[in-house]
């Protein structure tokens, strides 16, 4: 057993999982309140990555920023969260709210339209080339230096920052939903929108707040993800698809379910690429075949997801 490889796989699982969980939370919050699959959410994530890139460029880039790189990183995340929160509100106001009483297929198509609109608009504005935060050269390469060392294995600062930031954001979200008035209103709306309205809850405000939160989390996820990868207009497709799957596995509509689903899917993906494809003797390029085959089996066994409630129909 190669223990370095095993520990690295665990770290990969946690990094991937934290990204999927942050995005999945956006899917699940919007679905929980509006019963809408917001397929544009992966593209909001992509916009967040671009906003981060814009802030980094504004402050002089990765190698020689005009202020401390740590402050730049914080500003990148905050700007991406703010911009994506606003974007979420705009999408809700113009693409979903007019269709709130339309048949359920209509906002679904609208969501797909917004998804294409965002990715192609970004391509039109900034071109299709891959850009990079150049995190390898940030702070003289500090992000790639070991933060934790166990024997011959080490975890870089980049991974630690990514995982811890995601966990902190998830904790804040949980506190907000569980301990505040607006959180209580969100929970009430997700259980029964009409009853919540009759109790005096401003539904439009609650829905708008759900889009603010989901956008902000997607923006943060975009920056954290782009620190490790590249920035380009179609970058939201695969993480968006995996995060949506994670939300469904966890039980769509359930906030802890989205977190759990995200980490579970990240683990399944990392384990499949590193080990499972080797063990069953198929090319690693077909790892998605294995991952989604496992998920089909899982959904057949538990269609409501891990923490989802079964849909009980009263007669």
């Amino acid at each position, binding site marked *: 057993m190669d223990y370095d490889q095993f520990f690295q796989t665990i770290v990969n699982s946690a990094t991937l999982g934290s990204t999927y969980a942050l995005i999945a939370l956006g899917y699940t919050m919007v679905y929980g309140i509006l019963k809408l699959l917001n397929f544009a959410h992966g593209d909001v994530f992509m916009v967040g990555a671009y906003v981060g890139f814009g802030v980094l460029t504004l402050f002089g880039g990765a190698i020689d920023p005009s202020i401390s790189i740590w402050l730049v990183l914080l500003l990148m995340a905050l700007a991406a969260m703010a911009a994506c929160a606003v974007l979420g509100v705009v999408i809700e106001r113009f693409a979903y709210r007019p269709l709130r009483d339309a048949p359920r297929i209509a906002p679904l198509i609208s969501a797909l339209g917004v998804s294409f609109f965002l990715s192609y608009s970004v391509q039109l504005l900034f071109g299709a080339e*891959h850009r990079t935060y150049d995190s390898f050269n940030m702070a003289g390469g500090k992000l790639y230096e070991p933060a934790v060392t166990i024997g011959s294995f080490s975890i870089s600062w980049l991974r630690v920052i990514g995982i811890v930031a995601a966990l902190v954001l998830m904790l804040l979200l949980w506190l907000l939903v569980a301990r505040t008035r607006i959180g209580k209103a969100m929970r009430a709306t997700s259980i029964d929108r009409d009853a919540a309205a009759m109790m005096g809850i401003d539904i439009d405000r609650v829905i708008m707040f759900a889009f603010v939160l989901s956008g902000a989390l997607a923006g943060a996820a975009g920056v954290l993800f782009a620190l490790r990868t590249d920035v380009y207009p179609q970058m939201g497709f695969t993480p968006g698809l995996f995060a949506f799957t994670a939300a469904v596995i966890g039980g769509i509509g359930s906030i802890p379910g989205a977190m759990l689903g995200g980490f579970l899917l990240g683990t399944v*993906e990392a384990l499949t690429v590193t080990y499972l494809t080797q063990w069953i003797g198929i090319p690693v390029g077909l790892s998605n075949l294995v991952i989604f085959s496992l998920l089909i089996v899982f959904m057949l066994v538990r269609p409501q997801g891990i923490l989802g409630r079964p849909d009980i129909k009263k007669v």
Partner: protein
Amino acid sequence: MKRRALIAAALATLVAASLAASAGADTQAGARSEAAAVSCNGTINIGNLTVLTGPAAFLGQSQQSWAALAAKRVGAQLGLKARVIGYDTTLDPAVALTAAQRLVGNRSILAAIGPATSGGVAATSKTLRDASVVHVTPSATRTSLTKGGTPEATSYFYRVVADDSVQGTGQAKHAVERLNADKATVFDAQEPYSVGLANTIERALERRNVTVQRLSVSNNTTDFSSFVTRIAGDTDVVFTPFQVAANANQIAVLLKEQGKRAIVFGGDGTADPAFKVPGSYFSNFAPDLNGVAGKQAIINAWKRDNPERTLDPFGPPAYGAVQSILYAAKRACTGKRSIERVNIKRKMKAGAIPNWILGGNFRFSSKTNDPLNGGFWLFQIQPDGTARQVGRL
């Protein structure tokens, strides 16, 4: 009322779009009805099927700039008036086919350069052959495009750069002889160019008794962490024959992060400033023109025409592709007042081309439509992230 206004506006947009489309169709039909022959005293139009948008747009835009310069300079030297018309293929073979169909429909075009990518050539060579359009690629390197009797290896397709059999075996040779590699990983990105080059590298390494691990990644892969985790710590070289240089760069960065010592070796698709981890290598089908004797005047002319661009090693072969077409056109025009597309093909191999853009004289092989003695050049990324030419494969 508001809804009626919206419907009226939508109908008006549809009518306007239909009118615009029919106007475009008329223009194309008009072009089709023109005579296929082109006057030797008139303008010779050369199509350029290349990647003008998308992640590899840097390649196509560079090629377009060099092709335009060749039309101007070589045309003037040969007493011909020439013009290059760009057709965007993106990296998508289906888009390339549509672009080729548009090019073929424009009867004022005598010949073409491109497509720039191997997938683009495979998708379009039949369409171009059926319309008797000679097309000379300045960058598509997949071996089967000119060899092995494959459907895409038509007699109308030529290239002015060496193929992947030269690149792949050269990379493997360098890895074994210079980098002392006995364990290697070869990636492919599940598309024709990448798989073809990866297969060549893998075979060449195995012939030299190198232990090879093959990893295949989907084009949709965004995070390569788990793939890099699969690479053993004692692997010497990792080959990344991708079309997106940023992906090769990500793999090089992840290797460093995971404490692995392997050196990354990219193909011509990674000859891009986005690939910048120091110590990494890439090969390219053309040398750094600054190092080729007697080319300073051409470089200066190109810089005058393109003050905002920086000199790269993948644009100049497009100049050569136009050179080869204009020399064929000049020969075909000897004793004639006009020529047709098919005349270009008859003269493509009629003689050597002097003052070749990459140095010396150029000649096509008598056996295939490849260059005689074509080569690949090796570049290494320096500590400041720039690439320096370090040899020839």
